[in-house]
């Protein structure tokens, strides 16, 4: 008789089991097969995600040199964090970045979704056009926008000149640069959130809208009393995902790395970028890990608050 065990054993060699092994009950065979199926991924996730996560918590207490030598330094890295003005600066930059990006993605994502959720000619083409920036790599996005944002002769400045505005240094003025980066980030990400919102909108039963029309509700009333409340689960997902990616998403790193290197005057030095700089430019791995665990702590707290406020993201339609 063929058992479940001989086949998955191709993945994990377990010669003792199988046909010749002791007869197992069906439920036991099923469980064993399941563990073997999960094993490769579970091992990988444990080694390359969970272990670094735990490792980063303890790494903060060590000084690590370039050759992998560890020296216990107690709280030194954490103390340094408290007095490092550049770290404080990067926290502030991250705060502003998150505060602008999360609402901006919500509004643009939902706005675009509402726009392309109605029948109109070429609506599929428009959806694709709004989404297409998202499939291009962030390096390409960063390079392209960097050329377009060049002082004086760049495409964007030419465009502004046309409207009689000129002289902006989009990536050179410390007061503007973070917002230029934010604009590019929204341009890159909004199509993704549009699709998420679109699937949320399409799940709202048509009857609600029919009923609202019969009751004589205007578009504004319909939007605020039907669409928004029924979109709550989607909204929760969007807020959570955009928040996490604003704090620690790869777009936060890639765009800064290519376009500004944290400058000018550290005005775009997001925590995620500063951590990378400390680790791989100045070889301060321990200090970088201390800052990373602090970031994780903040992320956990904010996620927890979001869950608490929204009661676990579980909403009841009322």
């Amino acid at each position, binding site marked *: 008789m063929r058992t479940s065990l001989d086949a998955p054993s191709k993945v994990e060699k377990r010669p003792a089991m199988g046909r010749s092994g002791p007869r197992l009950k069906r439920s036991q065979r099923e469980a064993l097969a399941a563990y073997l199926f999960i094993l490769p991924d579970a091992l990988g996730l444990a080694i390359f995600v969970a272990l670094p996560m735990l490792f980063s918590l303890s790494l903060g207490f060590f000084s690590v040199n370039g050759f992998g030598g560890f020296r216990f330094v107690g709280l030194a890295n954490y103390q340094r964090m408290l007095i490092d003005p550049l770290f404080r600066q990067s926290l502030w930059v991250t705060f502003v970045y998150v505060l602008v990006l999360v609402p901006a993605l919500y509004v643009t994502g939902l706005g675009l979704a509402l726009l392309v959720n109605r029948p109109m000619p070429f609506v599929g083409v428009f959806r694709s056009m709004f989404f297409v920036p998202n499939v291009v790599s962030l390096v390409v996005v960063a390079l392209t926008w960097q050329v377009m944002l060049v002082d004086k*002769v760049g495409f964007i400045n030419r465009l502004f000149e046309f409207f009689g505005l000129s002289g902006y240094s989009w990536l050179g003025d410390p007061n503007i640069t973070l917002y230029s980066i934010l604009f590019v980030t929204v341009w890159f990400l909004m199509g993704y959130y549009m699709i998420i919102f679109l699937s949320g909108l399409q799940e709202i039963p048509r009857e609600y809208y029919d009923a609202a029309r019969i009751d004589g509700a205007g578009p504004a009333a319909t939007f605020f009393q039907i669409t928004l409340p029924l979109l709550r689960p989607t909204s929760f997902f969007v807020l959570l995902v955009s928040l996490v990616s604003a704090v620690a998403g790869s777009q936060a790193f890639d765009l800064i790395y290519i376009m500004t290197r944290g400058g000018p005057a550290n005005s775009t030095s997001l925590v995620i970028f500063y951590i990378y700089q400390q680790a791989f430019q100045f070889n301060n791995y321990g200090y970088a890990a201390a800052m990373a665990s602090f970031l994780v702590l903040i992320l956990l707290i904010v996620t927890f608050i979001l869950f608490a406020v929204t009661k676990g993201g579980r909403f009841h339609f009322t």
Partner: protein
Amino acid sequence: MTEPTAQIQAGGPSRNVFRRLGPILLFCFTAVLAVLTVSPLLWMICASLKPGDETFSPNMLPQHWTLENFQYVFTASPFWRYMLNSFFVAGTITVIALWFHSMAGFALARLKFPGRELIFLIIFSTFLVSLPVIIVPLFILVRQMGMVNSYAGLIIPAIFNAFGIFLLRQFYIAIPQELQEAAVIDGASYFRIYWSVMLPLSRPILAALAVFFFLANWNAFIWPLTITNDRNLWVVQIAIASFHQQYSSSWNYIMAGSAIVALPTLLLFFIFQRQLVESIKTSGLK
């Protein structure tokens, strides 16, 4: 941009005019916005086809079309090698990830075993851990394993992510129980059920995820940047980022490199956009 719907169809004395004009205005607005959205990409492609002295001319379209920038990219650097590296790395990650994730997803969805919910919860919780947060300890770990500057270092850590497992599990849960029962009665092993029943059924979602994984890994930057400095192992993203440092004023070459790197992703998107969009939709609370 926020909600043009509300403004345009608002009631009032001119309601009838808006009734008729509304959809047309909305169409025009959407069309203009869509064209503006793609214009940076069009601009990049145009800039890659212009000679260097035209990069900053106010015209979007080239006055003298040229392929010289592309020739330069391929002769001044081993760009083919970088592209092969990217194809190899992204392709390998995609294949292995699909295999591992489909097995895990199948077990989590269709097999009963002690600790199933807990294991799923733990796997799911790694969803929130993003690479930039763990990059320092991950690098140290992978360095201890001797995988710096190797294909293994580029590939292995990138295989594992909870997103694919989660999506496949959701898919397998929806498959009717009868198909599996029939196979069990026929005496099929669990691996056979996975291989001959579940995998063929999940072809559409596997295709969608394949596109998704390939794109994500072709576009990946921070990990290859961290784990390789040997030029022979460079992937395309690192290559064009370094062009940027080498020829910081020759934007025409950089745009040509960018166009080459973006082209496969754009092609994949146009061919598989339905699958891609479906997999994104599924990721949003379902």
